[in-house]
């Protein structure tokens, strides 16, 4: 009878131990799963790509303003002499040095009375002279009232014309 009791007790103890062990295993598994989950969450936070400071970040640098157009410097003349009966004439129309890097000039002589173009030069760079012109025709000796049209052009690819100047001039043929 006593042995039977002991057997029952041992059986109950074994069952209880097994149930307890099973419970521990389930609880452990649950806790482990939870830990993994939080570890994964934490890992997902720490694995976010790191954004570094742009090497070009810094204080505001104001861009250098492009240079302002200087005015066009134009030398004035009141007379130009050409030989009578000739088709070429020596002249000395000058593009001042001050226009360097900015403006080329062209010169055109137009008779006031008839608006006839007597000559037109090509581009004269700054610091250079136009030393000779070819006349549209020969002229008899005399003094002719004329206009010298000075047209500046920007020294860039577009060669766009700027404001221009007409000056009174006398064409002296002698």
């Amino acid at each position, binding site marked *: 009878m006593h042995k039977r009791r002991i057997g029952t007790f041992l059986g109950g103890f074994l069952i209880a131990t097994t149930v307890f062990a099973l419970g521990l295993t389930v609880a452990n598994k649950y806790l482990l799963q939870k830990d993994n989950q939080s570890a994964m969450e934490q890992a997902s936070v720490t694995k976010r790509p790191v954004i570094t400071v742009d090497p070009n970040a810094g204080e505001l640098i104001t861009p250098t303003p492009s240079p302002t157009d200087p005015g066009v410097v134009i030398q*004035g003349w009141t007379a130009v002499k050409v030989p009578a009966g000739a088709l070429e004439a020596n002249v000395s129309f000058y593009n001042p040095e001050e226009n360097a890097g900015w403006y080329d000039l062209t010169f055109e002589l137009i008779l006031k009375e008839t608006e006839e173009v007597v000559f037109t030069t090509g581009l004269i760079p700054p610091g250079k002279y136009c030393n000779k012109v070819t006349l549209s025709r020969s002229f008899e000796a005399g003094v002719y009232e004329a206009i010298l049209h000075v047209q500046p052009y920007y020294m860039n690819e577009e060669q*766009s014309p700027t404001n221009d100047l007409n000056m009174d001039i006398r064409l002296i043929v002698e």
Partner: protein
Amino acid sequence: MKTTRKMLTLLMLLCLALGCVSANADTELTATNGTTTAESKVVLDLGEQPTTYTIVIPSQINIDTTTGKGSAKLTLKSGFVLTDITSLQVKLKSGVTNYNNHTGSDYNYLDLRNMANSSTVRCYVGHKEGEDDCSPTDTLISVTNQMANDKDYSKTLYFTVSSLPPYGVYTGTLTFSVVTA
């Protein structure tokens, strides 16, 4: 004695010839018995000093895109010399391309053109900011040969675009003229 006369005559002829060759040479010959001296005053005439002057014109008209206003300065530089003329005036050339003088409505403008689409904006020209009172016949700078030439003479023109377009590049040119008398 005869020899001396001959020498003097030859010398005089020589001096006369030299006097003729060198332009405007005044020759004074003094001869005394036994000695001969000659004085020659040479006048070098280079002619009249030519008229010289230098003008600085604005290359373009810059309009502030916010206010629609701008200005441009033109200058007659110091050191001008007027010899064969008595006066020199700088004006806006009348009849210049894109420049109109509405004498009836008493305002002046030039049309700035957009090269991309040919549209225009009207730009008024004035002697003062915000005005449109500058006429092509107005004298902007005036000097005479009696005036001091040790300083620059300048004039500022004012431009106003009353209705600014939303975007685009508009350009136009002015022609200035130098009128002499």
